[in-house]
């Protein structure tokens, strides 16, 4: 009961954040990169909800547009990595035999290359920027999910009701649609959610270090980095983007509670 309430509430709040970042124009009249020296460093007030930064840019607006980058790219990473993993696991289980063995080995090899180091190398090969960051993170994330999904499909295939279904003469398509898919859909959604949450952390961390967006475009991690010199005097410049990351990751994880079997 408690779990359902927490999960539903988190999902609703997360939806609000996603909507606000998807359509920032509905919530703010400012431009994210519009410089206004007359109003620089204003404390949070009624005109500037979260105050302004060193160039007089409206922080709330930058937060929404920044969230678009952070959340949008995390969604792409989560979607991309779980999709590759699901296809890989399905094909591997379907082909079976030597192909299954080979595909499992490839995943094993990818798993022992340290993920973040691999991602950095990929970013330097594809020219630096947000697009390479997203591609690199999706590439290093999928093998872990593929391994989990493959394990799940494998244990399903040996379940008694599936053996019975096969004995009764069920066709492969029927088995995949009626018995396998419903059983792994939840797992795929869970992996997507976890991947989304960890994607936000990875994207903002790497942007914080300067691997992602280029200035002056806003992104939550990059905004925290930009706020470092003013931490002593203008702490709100770091508090708001920091809270945005924490709250979004937290809500994404709590939303997944809805799916847990009670």
């Amino acid at each position, binding site marked *: 009961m408690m779990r359902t309430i927490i999960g539903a509430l988190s999902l609703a709040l997360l939806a609000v954040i996603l909507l606000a970042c998807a359509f920032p124009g509905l919530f703010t009249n400012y431009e994210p990169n519009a410089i206004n020296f007359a109003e620089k460093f204003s404390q949070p007030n009624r005109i500037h909800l979260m105050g302004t930064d060193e160039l007089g840019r409206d922080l709330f607006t930058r937060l929404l547009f920044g969230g678009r980058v952070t959340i949008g790219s995390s969604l792409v990473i989560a979607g991309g990595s779980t999709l590759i993993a699901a296809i890989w696991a399905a094909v591997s289980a379907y082909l079976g035999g030597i192909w299954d063995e080979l595909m*499992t080995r490839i995943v094993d090899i990818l798993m*022992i*290359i*340290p993920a973040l180091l691999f991602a950095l*190398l990929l970013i330097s090969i594809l020219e630096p920027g947000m697009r390479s960051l997203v591609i690199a993170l999706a590439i290093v994330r999928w093998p872990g999910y593929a391994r989990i999904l493959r394990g799940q499909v494998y244990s399903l295939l040996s379940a008694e009701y599936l053996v019975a279904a096969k004995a009764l003469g069920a066709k492969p398509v029927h088995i995949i649609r009626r018995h396998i898919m419903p059983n792994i859909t939840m797992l795929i959604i869970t992996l997507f959610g976890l991947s989304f*949450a960890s994607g936000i952390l990875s994207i*903002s961390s790497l942007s914080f270090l300067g691997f992602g967006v280029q200035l002056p475009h806003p992104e939550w991690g990059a905004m925290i980095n930009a706020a470092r010199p003013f931490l*002593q005097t203008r702490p709100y410049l770091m508090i708001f983007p920091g809270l945005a990351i*924490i709250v979004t990751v937290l809500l994404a994880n709590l939303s997944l509670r809805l799916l847990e079997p009670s």
Partner: protein
Amino acid sequence: MLKIIIRKVILGLFYLFVISVVAFVMVRQMPGDPAVLIANQDRETEAPPELVERIRHEYGFDRGMVEQYRCWLQRVIFDGDLGYSTRTKRPVLAEIQSSLPASLRLGLITFGLTLIISFPLGLLAGVTNNKILDLWIQSMAWINYSVPVFLLAVLLIWFFAVDLRLLPAIGHETGRHYVLPVAALSVHLSGWTTQVIRTSIREISEKPYIQFAHAKGLKQIRVILIHTLKPALFPISTALLIQLGNLVSGSFIIETIFAWNGIGRLLVDSIMARDFPIIQGILLYTGGIFALINILIDSLYLFLDPTTIEKMGRGRTS
């Protein structure tokens, strides 16, 4: 059993070979000419083309990729020589060995502290019937997990190093230097670890044989420690050992913020300088550590649960 472990080791070596090929090919796909970078090092003016040409020949960049790889592999296998850094001219092995201990120490201390924090909490949340207590521990764990390491690091530096002047913020010379980085990493990691431990324990404690153990009147502590904890250690140790590998290699964010000369920083600097031998060396070295951890996990399984011998014998390990 020994046969299976030997098989695993051979397989691990084969994986390392594949990784070395992948690393070798990948570094050569990076934009920029390493010969030009080496030639222009420590020079005020643009290097003359003859010099670039000479360097290209000296380092073997003008030969085919297969030929280059063969030379490299030959030296690695027969002399244990990973080559020389093109940036610092020191042996790759020396470079790695001078930066790995700091990262390793940071990883191990963080890992230990994380276990001390999250094991009792995860266990408690997993076995308790008290819903409120479970909820409290879980909420704390999720919040801890949601705080990005870099944000906490910046705030810790500001509070303890700048404002209170209690702890150093840069370098890794003394034990005091470890306090802030370890704290920043442990908060995030312990949130994740507590969840993993709680879930594994909860899964086991809902099994019928645990209910039966309770029903036949065994002492609570015995049921928890022997019947629940022991089987739960499998999934927990797998998840945690993988985290340890990530911790050692993935802490370059912390290394950058606290200006440590760790393995992650070395890689970033080497990528910037197109220092091929170092990049290959690091990938091989860290890949080796990961492969070793994997073999350890599998051996642990074989040791603790004899039923896995049969499964692994058939080649189904994961």
